[in-house]
């Protein structure tokens, strides 16, 4: 996360330092799986191999769609920009979600539009970010879902933080948590 944020701030040195640390930590591991599309896209863009986003790993590498989860809730899926346009996850997350028992999966209007997070964009251009977030929240609330999910924790922190501030009665839950649920 830091590496991408430092780079999008234009700070290459801080980004390189975090990159070296990543290499050290994961040097002995054959495969790295991350529950963050944005981080994986960044690493892959910079040449990292055998790094997978969670849904890619499950669907493509393990060939699994039904992970045996059950989650009896109404869920709205937000396809984040980097999962959609950089990693091109396509319907992998949806295939995994559809196989979850009891789930009531609903679509968000204008789903492909950015939620307004954008890393440091959310604080550097706070007003514009909030305008984008307001529209995203409206579309999420329109679905009457109980849960909003995505493959990126960062966007969820942004959407979920606003849902909580509004006491909207909708919680933001990472896709991995739904796949791990046995309710």
């Amino acid at each position, binding site marked *: 996360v830091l590496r991408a944020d430092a780079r999008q701030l234009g700070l290459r040195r801080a980004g390189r330092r975090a990159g070296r*640390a990543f290499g050290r930590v994961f040097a002995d591991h054959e495969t790295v799986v991350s529950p963050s599309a944005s981080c994986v896209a960044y690493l892959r863009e910079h040449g990292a191999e055998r790094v997978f986003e969670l849904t890619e790993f499950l669907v493509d590498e393990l060939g699994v769609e039904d992970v045996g989860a059950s989650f009896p809730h109404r869920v709205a899926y937000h396809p984040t920009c980097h999962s959609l346009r950089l990693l091109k996850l396509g319907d992998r997350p949806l295939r995994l979600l559809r196989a979850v028992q009891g789930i009531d999966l609903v679509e968000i209007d204008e789903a492909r539009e950015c939620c307004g997070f954008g890393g440091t964009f959310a604080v550097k251009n706070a007003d514009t970010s909030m305008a984008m977030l307001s529209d995203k929240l409206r579309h999420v609330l329109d679905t009457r879902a109980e849960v909003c999910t995505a493959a990126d924790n960062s966007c969820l922190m942004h959407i979920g933080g606003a849902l909580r501030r509004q006491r909207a009665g909708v919680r933001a839950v990472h896709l991995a948590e739904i796949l791990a649920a046995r309710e």
Partner: protein
Amino acid sequence: MSFPAAARRSLADSQLRRNVGKATSTIRAKRAAVVAEVDDWEALRDAGAAIKARAMATLPEQLERLEASVTRAGGVVHWARDGAEANRIVAGIARAHGAREVIKVKSIATDEIGLNDALAEQGIEAIETDLAELIIQLAHESSSHILVPAIHKNRAEIRALFERTIAQGQHLGWEASAIAEAARRHLREKFLTVGVAISGANFGIAETGTVCVVESEGNGRMCTTLPDVLVTVMGIEKILPEWRDLEVFLQLLPRSSTGERMNPYTSLWTGVREGDGPREFHLILLDNGRTDVLADEVGRQALHCIRCSACLNVCPVYSRTGGHAYESVYPGPIGAILTPQLRGLDQAPTLPWASSLCGACYEVCPVKIDIPSVLVHLRGRVVREQKKRSDPEALAMAAVGKVFSSRRRYEAAQRLVKLGRGPLGHLGGPLSGWTAMRELPDVPDQTFREWWRERRA
């Protein structure tokens, strides 16, 4: 003004939000529908990008070819290093013909160099003939969209403006056609009486010396055919090497810009011809910072832009702030990479950050300009060329970098956060923008690392 400050002002205007949001979503849907009809759209985009790359890689040669072919066809070619030089040339031509008024077909390049003001200083009035350009000229405003300059105004606002200016004392009613009719009556008289016209160029063909203007209203066609003298101001990046290259761009442009299969008016002219059209044709080749852009290996792809504005219409930032927040004749994602490069990074240092890097612009660009990558590249340049190392942002990131690059420091930081957790409702300083609308995430009882170790034990 910085982009965040200008955006804040625009975002507070709820009528503007409604007007721009409605218009962009309409064009967005139209574009998506007509692009989906074309089976080889991706191949067309590749061809467009390749032609532009070739044109830019051989620019000096192509420009000399263009000069030779325009001259051969009876036109006069002028070279302008910057806006001031181009304005002087245009004013000189107008004065030589004793013109007090000139008519203009919509041209962003002439807006870029402030031609109208420069002519006014010489006592020459420039009259915009594109309907939207006329609207903003009458309102003393600036363009807020590349293709639809008055996109920020709705029908009621335009009617009121006309009733105050060109249709004084009249009641135009609510019909769009009646409101447009007032502009038509005003402009027709100008087309028939003014002797000098000024145009921009969508494309200039080096091979044949042909200039191409693409438009919807036909007012541009009036400008390029009725007056005796035609002056075209063309940015040097608008050059296409060969006539056949037009085939690609005349497919890409209308579908990307107005969401039409074909645009209503495509005007092409090559020099002058006895008894047909203008008797005198001048082509001004404008640099105004473009060769500097060409020197930046990553940033130069911004010069491939064909001004379709598809990136504006899909941009989640533009569609909320509108164009004025970018404080440039080039707004939206393309403006965020073009303006700082043309004017110099120090003149627009916040524009490369006017994006969440969502990538929607790159997805629709008909010539595949990788706008997000150029934005990130320009951010790096702003930091290296404009900011000091002691900049608070750089210091903060360097500190976080230290924490993230060592396991010991990272885990210590996690413990610290856990100790400090509590009802941190509102942050101060630069982070106050976060808590203005959002809660901070809860710090969990157990970190992932702790859970992982426990699970393996």
